[in-house]
């Protein structure tokens, strides 16, 4: 079954026959499949690493209407993997840059840009204009938001996610199989899992996973399941690109799923920042901060401050933080006796996020000394105090 009903098949123009010749002579796609592709409306959420190959290949394949949603602008550090953007696009809105490339490949594509953040307020309206959502976002709140909105609207989510050199792909389509909540009923507490901005990502990886997503989108549109194909509905594809191993795990629908189960308790979109624990309980003791300039002043005065660099060894190779004791994040519990609770300890990571979690974890583990978080991390030190050091 295609997600595009027979009544919506679009007519091909004379030029389309030449452009899509290699699809038309493929029996599993053929004229009917190409007409469905032309009629299809696909929303690509995020025009970053995953969204880049998704949008490029879907445009090339003849998807008639492509929605692009992103609120970000192109940064130099994006270019290592977000191949839809070019060096000259730095500082442009990502959706504008992506739109230019998409139309360059296929001027007949109808491109709808949403230069905004997807929220609980606008998600149903935006997603409601599409047949399929391809999810290439980079955070848990948006992933749950996309899932819930798609379940409520009855449309499939073609899911992809990456971290370092591992990727996941699936199709979450509650009408025919499990949804994202069936697999992951709750997100990790904030800070527990580092983001790609902190953990890094192999540049090619989103290209591979994004292409797998594009393949699934096309299969849903042409109705591969009725033509001897199999989609990723009910399966989770895992890729370890470093060891080059693909594995497929079976996913089952959770009968107690709060949104797609037998007795759903979620009937409307919720506050996903709160659901993901990003709005912290007010009674929780806040983590004390110190700016790079304040730290410099105190160090210059000769105060006995313990500097704890929790970055990984390969990050310290980019630059060493002078006078700091190196204890990677993943070894803090084992080595917490190496701190002196009588002196202030300043925790240093790349952007000041992992260090917040480190302080909370040590506090939970009973460490009684005063702990301060270097605000915005080693990048702030390089920016404000030591400009000869690189920000990365």
């Amino acid at each position: 079954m295609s997600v595009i009903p027979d009544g919506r098949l679009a007519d091909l123009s004379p030029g389309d026959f030449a452009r899509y010749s290699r699809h038309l002579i493929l029996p599993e796609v053929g004229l009917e499949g190409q007409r469905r592709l032309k009629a299809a409306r696909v929303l690509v959420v995020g025009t970053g690493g995953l969204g880049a190959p998704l949008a490029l290949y879907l445009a090339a394949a003849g998807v008639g209407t492509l929605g692009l949603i992103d609120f970000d602008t192109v940064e130099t550090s994006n270019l290592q993997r977000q191949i839809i953007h070019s060096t000259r696009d730095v500082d442009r809105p990502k959706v504008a840059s992506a739109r230019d490339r998409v139309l360059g490949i296929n001027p007949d594509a109808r491109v709808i840009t949403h230069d905004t953040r997807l929220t609980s307020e606008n998600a149903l309206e935006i997603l409601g204009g599409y047949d399929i959502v391809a999810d290439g976002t980079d955070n848990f709140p948006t992933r749950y938001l996309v899932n819930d909105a798609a379940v409520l609207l009855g449309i499939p989510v073609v899911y992809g996610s990456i971290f370092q050199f591992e990727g996941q792909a699936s199709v979450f389509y509650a009408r025919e199989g499990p949804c994202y909540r069936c697999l992951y009923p709750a997100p990790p507490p904030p800070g527990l899992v580092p983001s790609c901005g902190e953990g890094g990502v192999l540049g090619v990886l989103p290209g591979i996973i994004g292409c797998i997503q594009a393949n699934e989108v096309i299969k849903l549109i042409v109705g591969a399941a009725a033509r001897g194909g199999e989609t990723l509905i009910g399966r989770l594809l895992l890729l370890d690109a470093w060891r080059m191993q693909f594995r497929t795990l079976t996913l089952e629908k959770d009968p107690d799923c709060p949104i797609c189960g037998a007795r759903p308790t979620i009937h409307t979109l919720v506050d996903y920042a709160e659901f993901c624990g990003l709005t912290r309980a007010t009674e929780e003791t806040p983590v004390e901060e110190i700016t790079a300039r304040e730290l410099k002043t105190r160090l210059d005065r000769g105060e006995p401050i313990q500097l704890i660099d929790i970055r990984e060894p390969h990050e310290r190779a980019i630059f060493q933080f002078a006078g700091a004791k190196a204890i990677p994040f993943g070894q803090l519990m084992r080595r917490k006796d190496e701190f002196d609770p009588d002196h202030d300890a300043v925790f240093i990571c790349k952007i000041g996020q992992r260090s917040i979690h480190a302080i909370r974890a040590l506090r939970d583990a009973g460490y009684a000394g005063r702990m301060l978080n270097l605000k915005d991390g080693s990048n702030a030190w390089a920016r404000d105090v030591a400009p000869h050091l690189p920000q990365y």
Partner: protein
Amino acid sequence: MSITIQIPSALRAFTDRKPEIAVEGKTVREAIGALADAYPDIRPHLFDASGALRAFVNIYVAGKNIRHADGIETVLPDGEILALVPAIAGGAGQ
């Protein structure tokens, strides 16, 4: 009973970057417990404060989610491979 636990990259920071760890255990509880004993920094990522398995980590044994078997008490045959499959969110990113 020797069990191989596959460590995803999101959790390798807590296992000295090792992708696989061999442990002893007759059930998932014993195997995961042995892992957390050997690498205590991974414990908060696998268990919450009450000692329950966290919902963002799925555990697969022989290709099957233990939630659809006997959960954390699922019995492990000698030589079995146990895969940790945590939620990851990367995609667009800075």
